[in-house]
């Protein structure tokens, strides 16, 4: 058994046996849903329905019902797409990158972070597929042999790279998440009393039995999938950033975008994980598993990535001044002092200044403060994407094309709808799926559990 340094704080609090962990994790699934859950589900699904209505209206009437115009032809649609994709990235980071770095604290949070990835990518996919004028022809994006003399797609376009990147990202994340869920589903199957539940979890668990051979393969699959997901997550958001970076638009044509977008994605993703987990740990009484230490670790990642984002903002400003290109200089002057100065100010305050507060230990270990700040960061990162897209497009090369952008209720409605969809799915997930990877958690009880750590101390190890 692995011996762990005494300096490390326990990751599992209280006196937890293997069986106790099982009990704690299946409680939300086997128990009855609370009133709060039903209320939240109703609100979320109503928002979701409203979003579906707005989408149907868009498809039926035309993209003109949005606020986008000839100059600003990308606005809330792509802002929300990049925002959602960015949120999804923390899930993969937690489950893949932290696995490669053997970070044990990931075990309590990886399951819900991966679920968050899946649902966030689904929301993002809505925007890319339905911001087209003729979404019923979206299948033309795939290089399928056809009756037009086999007319193919153009592989030079980053929007086509997006199709490949997002679909690969979604499907690989789904498989990674599902593989991890199999032993947990088997655990629920084996203790289910009701025949229907037993049947359902029996199908979901694929007949998993936990034999040594299967575990050996399972661990290899997890490790290789983590090794594949890590470059995947970096490439996906880099490809998303190339939608802008490969253009000729001043303010977009920069080489810093790929790493800067990825850092921003991790930053906003971790903020969203915190927002969700702070509620989940409270409502489902998982305080012994998702401890203050976990929150602190995530906050440290927020400081690191927030600072990278801050450096990127300053680099962009410096380079635009240093370039001597007046269009480039004006693009940044316009962001800071133009008609959307308030969006730029909101982005700077929320993303650069506010995460620096986490340098204070008192603040980064305060749950209330973390919760508020995690929401602030998500607002800030929404504004970052908005600032990159809208103010840039409303002031490009020709002054005669300068105009303004105002979202309509449909733009807002679709965004609200995706938030509703995300929470609908997430709420259902917390009720029917194990929110913590119990089979992983059980491997660290004896090295990082509070009880075992204290016992080891007494024995003078």
């Amino acid at each position, binding site marked *: 058994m692995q011996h762990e340094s005494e300096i490390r704080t326990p990751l599992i609090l209280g006196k937890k046996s293997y069986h106790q962990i099982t009990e704690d994790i299946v409680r939300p699934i086997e128990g009855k849903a609370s009133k709060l859950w039903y209320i939240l589900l109703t609100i979320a699904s109503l928002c979701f329905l409203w979003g579906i209505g707005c989408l149907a209206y868009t498809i039926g009437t035309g993209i003109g019902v949005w606020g986008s115009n000839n100059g600003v032809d990308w606005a809330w649609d792509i802002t929300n797409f990049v925002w959602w994709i960015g949120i999804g990235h923390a899930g993969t980071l937690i489950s893949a990158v932290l696995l490669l770095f053997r970070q044990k604290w990931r075990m309590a949070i990886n399951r819900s972070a991966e679920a968050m990835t899946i649902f966030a990518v689904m929301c993002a996919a809505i925007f890319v597929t339905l911001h087209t004028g003729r979404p019923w022809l979206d299948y033309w994006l795939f*290089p399928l042999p056809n009756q037009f003399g086999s007319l193919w797609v153009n592989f030079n376009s980053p929007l*086509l790279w997006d199709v490949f990147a997002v679909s690969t990202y979604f499907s690989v994340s789904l498989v990674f998440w599902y593989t991890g869920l199999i032993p947990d589903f088997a655990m629920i199957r084996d203790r289910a009393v009701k025949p229907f539940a037993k049947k359902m979890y029996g199908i979901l668990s694929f007949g998993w039995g*936990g034999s*040594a051979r299967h575990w050996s393969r399972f661990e290899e699959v997890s490790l*290789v999938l983590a090794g*594949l997901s890590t470059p995947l997550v970096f*490439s996906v958001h880099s490809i998303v950033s190339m939608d802008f970076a490969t253009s000729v638009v001043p303010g977009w044509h920069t080489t810093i975008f790929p790493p800067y977008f990825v850092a921003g994605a991790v930053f906003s993703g971790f903020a969203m994980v915190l927002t969700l987990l702070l509620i989940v740990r409270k409502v489902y009484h998982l305080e012994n598993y998702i401890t203050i230490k976990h929150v602190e670790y995530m906050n440290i990642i927020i400081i690191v990535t927030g600072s990278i984002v801050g450096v990127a903002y300053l680099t962009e400003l410096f380079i635009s001044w240093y370039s001597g290109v007046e269009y480039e200089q004006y693009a940044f002057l316009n962001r800071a002092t133009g008609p959307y100065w308030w969006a730029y100010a909101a982005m700077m305050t929320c993303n650069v200044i506010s995460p620096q507060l986490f340098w204070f230990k008192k603040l980064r270990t305060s749950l209330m403060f973390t919760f508020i700040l995690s929401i602030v960061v998500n607002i800030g990162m929404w504004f970052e994407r908005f600032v990159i897209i809208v103010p840039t497009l409303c002031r490009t090369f020709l002054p005669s094309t300068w105009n303004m952008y105002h979202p309509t209720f449909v733009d807002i409605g679709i965004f609200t709808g995706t938030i509703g969809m995300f929470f609908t799915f997430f709420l259902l997930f917390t009720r029917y799926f194990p929110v913590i990877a119990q089979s992983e958690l059980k491997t660290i009880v004896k090295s990082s559990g509070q009880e075992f750590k204290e016992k080891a101390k007494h024995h003078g190890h």
Partner: protein
Amino acid sequence: MSKVVIHAIYDDEEPLLESAKQLRSQGFSIKDVFSPFPIHGIDGVIGVPRTRLAICSFLYGITGTSLATLMMWYMMVQDWPTDIGGKPSFAYYMNVPAFIPITFESTVFCAAHGMALTFFLRSWLIPGAKAKNPDPRTTDDKFMMVIETEEASKSVIESILKGGATELHYK
């Protein structure tokens, strides 16, 4: 002589590992071990060979790279060498930077899904498959060792298991 299957149940992974080592040193073979989480070190003791899934994954990955390269060469250079925004379409190498993102994604796609599918099929984990653990408690907090042996050696094995196992069942 008739065969006996012994199911030995443990409360913890360490005594199981200890008994497994003793059984192996006396020349008995262990058929399988069922546990709620991976027991590190068990593979060497009960003789589970290292899985070759990673090699499969590599092969699927290079298949993905080749397919993507072939596809984009055929569609962009061979079939319709069109001028799209001044990009050179005369030879594959001339426009290769634009093909890298999709080549990369395709490599990851094939490596990940190919390996996952191989894992599921090789372990026969498919929707609707029968639960493979003989005792349902082994996905919660019990650990089970399955030993297949001759009737004669039953008592020797029993004496080894006596220390750690909490229950013994015969089939």
